[in-house]
């Protein structure tokens, strides 16, 4: 495989060079942060009143954590560290669960972010020869515009179609011979289920790569999508508070996502105690953005659960790799006292060819006990009409799930297309326990 780099010096510099760059940038970040009343007070409580108080990377631990609620409390401009005139871009979370969280970028911040995305895209083996169909939402959501700018910087042919309208998406893939998609895994699964009705076979498309992000998904889902479309799928990680996509991205070897450590400081902590965890242990991802001046943000608790792989990568990049997101500290379900992540259930379902790609985790009360029902759809092409095979299929899924999550689920089989799907982030959990 030909390994290509966007900025080889930065991507392959040794650990000590990364760390000295991180220290310098962390000092600048603290300096910037002190320009906001909120951080000035918060840092003062930690005994930090100037960048000079930071003398080594270990001093990072003196800085307090920040959480989503801090961003909400400071809505809309409390964390802005530059004059609004310098701001060239605003992004915001949807705010469906409360006050939205906003981020601001200067022109320099935009350049930094775009460069990280170009770096990410090139790491997957893409080049200016590719035709890039960006199927993430545009607008306030960071996913669409982030990759759009990065792909343009690489020189790809960018089709800014955004999300939704499946039939048109497929037509565009054919008309422009799209080679690279940026899409959520659930939407790509949905598109595959619709190809038949558009009289299109996956082989008629020219997809070589897909960047998958914006929702957690399992390795089995990746393998399934790669097989269905005959392409390579790359895991992408980012969150709007850290600018959006481009925090971490998989290289062509697809063994975890390189976190661009010249731009972000990565920590994994125990979500209960806040203690830092060693590489390899599963914990909450905490990030410090070193390349955004309009709105400084350090030690941000992402609520995403993952672990770090510090081993050198065959691609030669020295930036440590982050595992796929295993779950979120807040999407963990507690079922009769047992912690269950939807991703564990997805992992099992995606490995069963006889069921489709749509599923629903339904939680209800059965007396005082929680009842976990996993609903899956029959995959038409493997349906044989044999009741015993259907019984065996249910039994097999139940056993596999029980082995994975240690609790006994009820498995329900449904007709193809019967379960709700979405043309964006999928809603896979229906928790009706409070209502009963």
């Amino acid at each position, binding site marked *: 495989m030909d390994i290509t780099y966007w900025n080889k010096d930065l991507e392959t510099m040794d650990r000590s060079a990364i760390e000295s760059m991180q220290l310098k940038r962390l000092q600048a970040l603290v300096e910037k942060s002190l320009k906001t009343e909120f951080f000035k007070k918060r840092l003062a409580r930690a005994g930090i009143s100037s960048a000079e108080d930071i003398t080594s990377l270990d001093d990072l631990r003196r800085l307090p954590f920040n959480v989503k609620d801090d961003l909400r409390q400071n809505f809309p401009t409390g964390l802005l560290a530059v004059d609004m005139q310098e701001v060239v871009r605003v992004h915001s979370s949807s705010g469906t669960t409360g006050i939205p969280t906003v981020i601001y970028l200067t022109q320099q911040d935009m350049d930094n972010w775009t460069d990280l995305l170009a770096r990410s895209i090139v790491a997957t083996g893409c080049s200016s020869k590719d035709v890039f169909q960006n199927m993430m939402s545009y607008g306030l959501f960071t996913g669409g515009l982030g990759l759009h700018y990065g792909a343009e910087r690489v020189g790809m042919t960018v089709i800014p179609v955004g999300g939704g309208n499946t039939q048109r998406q497929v037509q565009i893939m054919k008309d422009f011979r799209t080679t690279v998609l940026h899409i959520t895994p659930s939407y790509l699964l949905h598109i595959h289920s619709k190809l038949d*009705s558009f009289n299109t076979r996956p082989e008629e498309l020219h997809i070589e790569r897909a960047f998958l992000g914006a929702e957690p998904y399992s390795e089995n889902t990746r393998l399934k999508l790669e097989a269905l479309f005959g392409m390579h799928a790359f895991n992408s990680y980012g969150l709007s508070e850290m600018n959006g996509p481009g925090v971490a991205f998989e290289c062509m070897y697809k063994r975890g996502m390189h976190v661009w450590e010249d731009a972000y400081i990565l920590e994994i902590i125990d979500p209960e105690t806040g203690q830092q965890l060693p590489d390899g242990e599963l914990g909450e991802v905490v990030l410090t953005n070193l390349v955004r001046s309009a709105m400084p943000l350090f030690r941000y608790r992402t609520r995403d659960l993952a672990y770090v792989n510090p081993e050198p990568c065959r691609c030669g990049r020295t930036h440590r790799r982050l595992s796929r997101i295993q779950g979120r500290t807040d999407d963990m379900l507690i079922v009769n006292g047992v912690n269950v992540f939807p991703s564990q259930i997805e992992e099992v379902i995606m490995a069963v060819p006889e069921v489709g790609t749509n599923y629903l985790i339904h939680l209800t009360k059965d007396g005082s006990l929680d009842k976990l029902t996993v609903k899956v759809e029959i995959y038409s092409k493997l349906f044989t009409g044999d009741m015993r095979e259907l019984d065996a299929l249910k039994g097999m899924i139940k056993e596999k799930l029980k082995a994975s999550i240690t609790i006994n689920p009820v498995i*329900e089989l449904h007709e193809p297309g019967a379960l709700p799907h979405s043309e964006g982030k999928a809603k896979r959990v229906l928790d009706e326990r409070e209502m009963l």
Partner: protein
Amino acid sequence: MAEQLTIFLENRPGRMKSISDVLLENNLNIWAFTVQDRGEFGLMKLIVDKPKKAHLILVDRGFACVLKEVLAVKAENDQPGNLDRLTTALWEQNVNIKDAYGFVSPKDHQGICFMEFENPDDANLEETIAAHGFTVLTGKALYEL
């Protein structure tokens, strides 16, 4: 052999109607059907006058539906004991019936039984049935009823 449609249906109001709607729209005639219930879902089995056409249409509408060969066995004279003679003959040969349902032929009012067997490829099966005075209807004979 006769061709039976087997359709996966969720067990909730309107699902059987979704099938009968499609059959009506396409002027397909139902000769026999049965529904096997299994909790949240069931299997609907249908014998219709144009099975291949019905299959294509149902698959096109997104149903999980297969076309399966089943044996159509016709008794010569409608009288008490016909089914008993048939099941006795099969029992003597140690043949296991997986699934069966009957209907009365619209032309000559003779009983017809559709059967699925554990080992459908057993060469002696049709001979055994014929030796006891039953007729195994071929697809053609069946669909000319």
